[in-house]
């Protein structure tokens, strides 16, 4: 694998790390299976792209994408909390509605950003190759978010959110108004996914309404790979694990792209990726059982 391809995979992994962290918040912290992300990812991309084309400052455009994602999360939470619609169904409703909304926002299915100044533009041309600038920039952003989340989840408020997902009856008995935490958590989760969408559009030069397909799968893969490889009761280690999981997933795809050298067809890509991810999950366990034997 070439350096450009490797760091390209890392870059994309870091973009999707925000999806992983968002999915970790909804699935693991809140115990809220949330498919909204398939819609809030392209939503973030759409909002950022349209704002950028409209001449908005890239940081502001990215902030708007986060806010839009958060709103999508709030809608799902509202449907669930206020009307008692099953969480999975509530999130599917929001997700399919977002497809139309994203088209409305963009006015067409694809908004190119190939000639726009983005959030990363100011960091180019300072001596570092472009294919390294993006991953370094994203790594800093991911680190800030991981630290922020680790801090947040250790506060009284964050702890109450964890209790809301872990044992809602106990949470209420301890005076925790669970709806408040579901709203906050879902907004935070989808805000992160919206951020991922905005960063994807800006690092890859386009927002496309189809870009959200399978976002939840990628997010879940990051969470599961991360949790399997980084077993710890320390929350920040698990969060770092989710980031690592997201990067590993992308490296698996990148590796699978090189498999034509060993006779695989291009159509085998998804299969090869799945096998590589499965190996990543199984290998540490094999080593452990061998050590035990």
């Amino acid at each position, binding site marked *: 694998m070439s350096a450009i391809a490797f760091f390209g995979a890392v870059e994309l992994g870091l973009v999707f790390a925000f999806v992983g962290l968002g999915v970790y918040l909804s699935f693991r912290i809140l115990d809220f299976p949330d498919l909204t992300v398939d819609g809030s990812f392209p939503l973030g991309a759409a909002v950022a792209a349209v704002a950028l084309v409209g001449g908005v400052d890239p940081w502001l455009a990215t902030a708007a994408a986060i806010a839009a994602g958060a709103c999508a999360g709030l809608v799902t939470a509202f449907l669930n909390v206020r009307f008692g619609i099953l969480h999975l169904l509530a999130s599917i409703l929001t997700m399919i509605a977002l497809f139309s909304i994203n*088209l409305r926002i963009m006015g067409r299915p*694809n908004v190119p950003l*190939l000639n726009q100044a983005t959030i990363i533009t100011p960091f180019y041309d300072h001596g570092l190759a472009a294919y390294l600038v993006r991953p370094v920039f994203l790594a800093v952003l991911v680190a800030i978010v991981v630290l922020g989340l680790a801090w947040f989840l250790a506060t009284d408020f964050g702890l109450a959110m964890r209790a809301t997902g872990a044992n809602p009856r106990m949470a209420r008995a301890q005076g925790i108004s669970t709806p408040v935490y579901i709203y906050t958590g879902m907004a935070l989760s989808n805000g992160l996914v919206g951020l991922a969408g905005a960063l994807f559009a800006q690092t*890859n030069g386009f927002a496309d309404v189809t870009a959200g*397909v399978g976002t939840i799968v990628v997010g879940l893969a990051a969470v599961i790979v991360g949790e399997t490889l980084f077993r710890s009761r320390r929350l920040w280690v698990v969060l770092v694990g989710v980031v690592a999981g997201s990067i590993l997933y992308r490296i698996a795809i*990148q590796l699978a*792209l090189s498999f034509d050298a*060993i006779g695989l067809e291009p159509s085998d890509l998804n299969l090869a990726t799945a096998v590589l991810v499965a190996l990543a999950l199984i290998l540490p366990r094999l080593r452990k059982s061998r050590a035990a034997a």
Partner: protein
Amino acid sequence: MRKLGLALAAAVVAAPALAADIKVAVTAIVEHPALDAARDGIKEGLAAEGFTDGKEIDFIYQSAQGQPATAAQIAKQFVGDAVTVIVPISTPSAQAAVAATKDIPIVFTAVTDPVAAELVPSLEAPGGNVTGISDMSPMADHVALIREITPNVKTIGVLFNPGEANSVSLVNRLKEVATAAGLAIVEAPVTKSADVQAAARGLVGKVDAMYVPTDNTVVSALEAAIAVADENDIPFYSGDTDSVKRGTLASIGFNYFDVGVETGKVVARVLKGEKPGAIDVTFASGTDLFVNKSAAEKMGVTIPESVIARANTVVE
């Protein structure tokens, strides 16, 4: 286990060293009959110009399997492998390639509106490292064909996915042309293949004819729409000729293999030393007339002899 991993890694790392010096890297967003035909055409077009896969050139192909994120990874893979030319098929793959490199020549194909997609600033001598072939459907010819075969048609229902960039461009173009010809358009949007049948049924009674542009979503569930057209005697036209073989009435379209051949010839020009920025972006030519006689019978249409005589392919 570790040995296996090392061997695998060695195979992956060592592979590029075996390749020919000239690498033509082709990628498409998804597996699709038209896109696959374009890919095969590119290979053929290159061979016709003296660049045969396995001899003069190494022809590489990757599919993103429907994921724009994977398209970005494929583009970076190609840039990292320092291929000679990148040939992206479809808009998202082309955008990913253009975002990934400003140096390696890019010859896109099967992109409907390359200027709107910001692949090139203009069609004539676009400059930079990008040129290619646009497959904007000859919409005026389609409308003329509809009027020639079924002169009583006043309203056309169009099945398409508003989420596909190409389809939206095509439908907008269709509306312009149809309005100019005094025809009305009824839009029947679908967002997934499973909805095609319901959308087609919704048009029954409202339209005199149905039309599907080169839309991946609708075309993948084309038979569902054809069944509705057959049952209700609605002439059903398509924007691509492959669909005529599957049971639409008629089309003037591209043979994507021919589009690929054309693209391959442009790639060959680049390989021979022309600057991509100096090559005009052109609209694909070689449009073929396809008619389907048995479909006409099922839809209660008689195709005029003049049209049949002119057709490149008549499906019985």
